[in-house]
């Protein structure tokens, strides 16, 4: 179904959803940057800037408690956190490159083990994607087969119009349902033209060729060449919409504490450190190789999907200027 919505009505939609008790997450000004954060009113929606961190936090928070323990006279009590308590959520105005990562992550979180926290959040979230009319020189969604107008992963999809409103397409049943429930805020199909889509500058990459090269180049001087400079921080992985490694730790004391799940990164020196002390990825080049292999080979082999949507966040954030698009271009040219 296709409708249109004005910007004031989009903000009103957020107010309405909040008043219905839903958790609404969208781009919001946060000091020197914009982040996807819970909105308490439509007025807070900040559409101008690309959020610094990706939208994956809507399903895969930076840190979450999965159980708590407590000891008293009676003994030890362990309490599971109930995923059912996760609230109904609407993720609004998320970039196509963020949204496209969500269905990719579904594969790994519902594979040999079903991550109920992730899956419950996914089930309870309706995603309103927003097409990009602007891209910067780090954006390369088009090079990895997506686009600033890609609806992959969106339930509803907004495309900005020349008159300041948005064309609104329902992509899934969830989207249809949201449209139907708030029909008064939408009007009929657009008369105004959609704004032209952003045009990321990087040329198309041959992703199958890249995968084939990776298949046969586990050992290659390229890894040292590119990754000797890698500082081994988690900035690239933490900001990435598709990176999903996490750590589970128990924190607290003898009397009480919690088991928590929080983000981890393959760039960290201790990431694969074994209890024996042996670390199979003992230098940065082998860690960076894993980053590329995981995104463009292992995940493709296993789930036929790629762990990169070309959002450019890692490119913007890397403190030592490592540019994944340059790495891909280089492999592509071999």
């Amino acid at each position, binding site marked *: 179904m296709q409708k249109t919505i004005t910007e004031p009505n989009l903000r009103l939609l957020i107010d309405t959803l909040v008043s219905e008790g839903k958790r609404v997450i969208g781009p919001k000004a946060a000091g020197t940057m914009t982040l996807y954060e819970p909105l308490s009113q439509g007025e807070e929606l900040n559409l101008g800037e690309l959020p610094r961190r990706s939208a994956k936090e809507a399903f895969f928070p*930076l840190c979450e408690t999965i159980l708590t323990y407590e000891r008293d006279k009676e003994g030890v009590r362990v309490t599971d956190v109930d995923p059912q308590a996760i609230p109904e959520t609407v993720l609004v105005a998320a970039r196509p490159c963020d949204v496209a990562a969500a269905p990719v992550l579904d594969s790994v979180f519902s594979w040999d083990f079903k991550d109920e926290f992730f899956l419950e959040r996914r089930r309870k979230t309706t995603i309103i994607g927003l097409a990009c009319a602007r891209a910067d*020189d780090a954006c390369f969604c088009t090079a990895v087969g997506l686009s600033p107008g890609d609806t992959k992963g969106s339930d509803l999809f907004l495309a900005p119009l020349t008159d300041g409103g948005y064309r609104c397409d329902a992509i899934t049943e969830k989207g249809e349902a949201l449209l139907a429930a708030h029909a008064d805020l939408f009007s009929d199909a657009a008369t105004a033209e959609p704004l032209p889509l952003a045009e990321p500058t990087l040329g198309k990459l041959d992703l199958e060729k890249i995968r084939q090269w990776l298949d046969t180049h586990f050992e290659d001087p390229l890894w040292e060449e590119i990754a000797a*400079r890698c500082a081994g921080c*988690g*900035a690239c992985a*933490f900001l990435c919409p598709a990176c999903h490694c996490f750590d589970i*730790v128990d924190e607290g004391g003898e009397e009480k504490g919690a088991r928590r799940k929080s983000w981890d990164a393959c760039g960290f020196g201790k990431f694969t450190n074994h209890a024996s002390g042996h670390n199979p990825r003992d230098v*940065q080049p082998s860690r960076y190789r894993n980053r590329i292999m995981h995104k463009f080979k292992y995940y493709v082999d296993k789930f036929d999907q790629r762990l990169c949507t070309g959002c450019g966040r890692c490119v913007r*954030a890397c403190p030592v*200027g490592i540019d994944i698009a340059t790495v891909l271009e280089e492999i592509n040219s071999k």
Partner: protein
Amino acid sequence: MTNTAQTIDLSLYAAVTEAVQAEARKVLEAGIVAAVVGWQAGRRKGTALPAIVTDPAKAKELIFSPACVNNLALYLTKAKKEIRAKGKIAIVAKGCDLKALVGLMGENQLKREDIHIIGVVCPGVQGANADRAQPLSETTIAGKCRECTVHTPEGADVTVGTLPQLPHFTPAESEELARLEAMTPAERWGFWKEHFSRCIRCYACRQVCPFCYCEQCLCDRNRPQAVESTPRPAGNMAWHIVRAMHLAGRCAGCAECERACPMDIPLNLLNRKMAKELKELYGFEAGFEVKEKGPLAQYREDDDQSFIK
């Protein structure tokens, strides 16, 4: 005319680039060094990244521009063993970066004779979130460069470039520090609490710091866990206190930690505050001469003891 309109003349960077390339080629060809650590241009306009050059023919890829923000001393630390293993290394260093090399020598992490320092005269580099399309000016220059005192490095094997006349910029970091110092302790605590609440524990600040070369960081320990590792208020506060204390008297002030922080936490303010305290209490400043032990790593009878109540 306001200060923001004052821009820095870019011709020096081109001259320095040429001189760096020539020096790199020379020392590689003569076999004086096994590699040169410098900067090369990035794919995106106005960006640069660290380069490790071993082939003299590739010396021409080295550049110096306002995008050359990294403190390359990082690549000579234990954290980057694979680079040191190549042999004697030449390193391109701005004045601020040279302080880190001096500090590393003091900590017995580097021997002067094992490195060849190519010092570059530097009018300033761009700030972390600067608009790269704009010229280098008060609005785009890094905070530390506005009040830099080491535009011309001293003690390098060669120093290239001649410093042009520089505009006068307002010392934003000092002003911010003064503002913090004027706060009550509770207000200051609130200030840092708010900033640290944004920390995602990506450790970019630690990983780019030349002085964070410990093979086992206390904050990575998990048997037992010394500092909570999840990005929550308690662990974040502990992490930042540990970090500030561990670097007090060692921090070279390169501000790399702050630049690398994807959450824009003003870490260099904390570094500067610690450096100021050490100067006042011990008359000590890091990075100016090679010293065996910093003030927090030794005991002297005339140390200030007024804090013991």
